[in-house]
C-alpha cells in the first residue's frame, strides 16, 4: 500500500510539471509585457524594472520558468494586483468557505445520490425507478445558477428559512450555525452532481446484477436485499468510486458559478472576480492550486478504488 502510494505520487510529478508549464505560460499568452500584466495598470516604471529583474523576465523563457517554479515551491505565488497582498494569502482567505461548501455538497451527493440510486436499481422498471432516473436526468439538465436563483427566491426571499447570500466564518459569532449560510449553495451545487451519481449507481448496479456471481449469491438462498447490498451494490461501488474524481472536477467548476450566485467569499468567486479585474497573478495561483488539489483527489480516488477492488494489485 505504501509503496503503491509512493509510486503513484512519483507518477504525478511529470503531469504536474507539464501542468505547471501550462500555468506558467498563461501569463505569457496574454498580449503585452508580462511585468506590466503582473503589476497591473497602476505600476510605476521602477516597479516594472524591479519585477523584471527579480523574475528574470529579460532572460530566456526556461530560465524564467525555473525562477517562477522555485518561487512557487517556496510558497511565493506572486502578489495580487487588486489586493496588493501575496496571492497565497488571498487564496487562503477563500479556502474556508470553499472547503466547507465542498464538504457539505459531497455529503448531499452521498446522502441523496446513493440511496436513491440503489432504490432505482432495485425497483428497476417500476414507476419509482422512472421517477428517480428521469428526475435525476432533469436535475442534471438544469443550469446551476438558475436553480440557485430560484432556491434563493423560494427559501430565502419567500419563506425566509435560510440566508440568501454571504458566509461569515464559523469562527465568527454564530459558530457552526453559520453553516446555514451554506445550506442553499450546497444544495444547488449538489443537485446536478447527485443526479449524476444516482444515474451512475443505478446503471452500475444493473450491470453488476447481470454478472454470474450474483446468480451464485442468489443460489445460496440469500435475501434479495442482502444480494442487492452486499453483492450488487458493493461491486457497483467500484465504478461509482472511480466517478468521484470527475464529480470533484464538476464541483470545482460549478462552485465558481454557485459562489457567484450566493456571493460567497470563496475561491470560485475569486477566480471570476480576478478574471474580470484582470488580476492575473491570482488567476495563475488559483489554477495551480486547484490543479494540484485535483490531482491529489484523483490519487485518493485511485487508492480507494484499489481498496474496493482486490483485483487491482497494490504491490
Amino acid at each position, binding site marked *: 500500500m505504501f*509503496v*503503491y502510494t509512493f*509510486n503513484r505520487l*512519483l*507518477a504525478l510529478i511529470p503531469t504536474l510539471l507539464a501542468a505547471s508549464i501550462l500555468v506558467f505560460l498563461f501569463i505569457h499568452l496574454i498580449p503585452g509585457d508580462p511585468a506590466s500584466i503582473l503589476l497591473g495598470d497602476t505600476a510605476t516604471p521602477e516597479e516594472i524594472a524591479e519585477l523584471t529583474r527579480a523574475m528574470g523576465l529579460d532572460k530566456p523563457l526556461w530560465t524564467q520558468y525555473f525562477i517562477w517554479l522555485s518561487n512557487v515551491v517556496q510558497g511565493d505565488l506572486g502578489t495580487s494586483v487588486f489586493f496588493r497582498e501575496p496571492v497565497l494569502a488571498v487564496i487562503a482567505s477563500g479556502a474556508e468557505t470553499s472547503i466547507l461548501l465542498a464538504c457539505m455538497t459531497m455529503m448531499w451527493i452521498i446522502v441523496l445520490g446513493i440511496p436513491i440510486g440503489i432504490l432505482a436499481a432495485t425497483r428497476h422498471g417500476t414507476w419509482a425507478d422512472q421517477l428517480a432516473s428521469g428526475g435525476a436526468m432533469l436535475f442534471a439538465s438544469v443550469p446551476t445558477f438558475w436553480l440557485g436563483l430560484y432556491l434563493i427566491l423560494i427559501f430565502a426571499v419567500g419563506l425566509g428559512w435560510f440566508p440568501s447570500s454571504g458566509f461569515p466564518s464559523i469562527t465568527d459569532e454564530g459558530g457552526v450555525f453559520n453553516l446555514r449560510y451554506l445550506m442553499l449553495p450546497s444544495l444547488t451545487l449538489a443537485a446536478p452532481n447527485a443526479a449524476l451519481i444516482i444515474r451512475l449507481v443505478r446503471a452500475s448496479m444493473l450491470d453488476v446484477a447481470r454478472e454470474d456471481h450474483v446468480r451464485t449469491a442468489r443460489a445460496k438462498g440469500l435475501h434479495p436485499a442482502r444480494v442487492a447490498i452486499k453483492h450488487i451494490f458493493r461491486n457497483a461501488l467500484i465504478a461509482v468510486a472511480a466517478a468521484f474524481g470527475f464529480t470533484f472536477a464538476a464541483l470545482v467548476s460549478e462552485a465558481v458559478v454557485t459562489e457567484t450566485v450566493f456571493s460567497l467569499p470563496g475561491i470560485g468567486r475569486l477566480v471570476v472576480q480576478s478574471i474580470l479585474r484582470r488580476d492575473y497573478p491570482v488567476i495563475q495561483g488559483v489554477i495551480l492550486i486547484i490543479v494540484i488539489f485535483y490531482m491529489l483527489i484523483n490519487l485518493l480516488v485511485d487508492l480507494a478504488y484499489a481498496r474496493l477492488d482486490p483485483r487491482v*494489485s497494490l504491490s
Partner: protein
Amino acid sequence: MTQATSKRALLDVRDLKTYFTIGKTGLFQAKSQLKAVDGVSFEVREGEVLSLVGESGCGKSTVGRTLTQLERATGGRADFDGQDILAMSPRAFRPLRRQIQMIFQDPFASLNPRRSIEQTLAEPLFIHKLARNWAEARSKIVETLEQVGMDPKVMQRYPHEFSGGQRQRIGIARVMILKPRLVIADEAVSALDVSIQAQVLNLLKKLQQDNGLSMLFISHDLGVVRHISDRVAVMYKGRIVEMGDKSQIFENPQHDYTRRLLASIPRIAQKAA
C-alpha cells in the same frame, strides 16, 4: 490421406520464441516476461495437416499468431518457401499474406459487424489485386461461397444475420478466396456446437484435400485433432513435448503429458457399436 513424409517442407519453424512483457506497474518494478512460446521447432509439409494440440495457456495460439505476424517473435526463424517470414518487415510480409491465411476461433468476433459479406470477401481480392473490378470480385465470391456450402444470395447481408456455423463458413470463405498455400486454423471449430462442428470439420477436410492445402491446425480437442491431422505436435508450457505421425501419437504416445491428456478424455461407452 497421403503419406506425407516424402514431401518437402513448406513451412520450416526453428526455435521459435515469443515472449510477452507483463506487469510493469510501478517505477521500481522489474518487468517480468511471459515465455508464451519458448523454443518451438516443427515443419509443415506440402499438402499435410499438422496439428498443434495442448491445453489453455500452452502457447499454441501464440505460435499461429506469431507466424502471421500478429505478434512479434522474440527469436528463431520460420522459413516459408525458403524465406524467413519472421525477419520480414510488415510491409514486406504483406504480399505473402495471400499465401498464409488464418481461420479464427470466434465466428462472432472475426467478422466486422459493419461490413456486408460481400465487402468482407471482396477486400482481400482487391488488396492482392486478384480482382480488377466488382464484377470479377463478385464472380469469385459466388464461386467461393458455393465452395463453402453457402448460398451466394446472402452476399448483401451482414454478419449478425447468420448463425455461428454460417459465420465460420464465411470466415473460411475469406481465407479460401485467396487460394492460399498454408492455412493456420486457430481453434477453428471450438466455439461451435457438436452437430455444426462436424459439418465445418468435414468442410475443412474436404477443402484441404481438394486443394492440396498445407494446414497448421491448432486445437485443444484431441478428437478433432485425430480426425483432421496427418501429424500431431503436443505442446506444454511453451514447448513441444512430443511430435509424430497421428497414429504414433494416438496409438503409442511416449511422453507422460500426452498419455495424461489422452487418459483424461471422457469416453463414450457404446457397447453395441
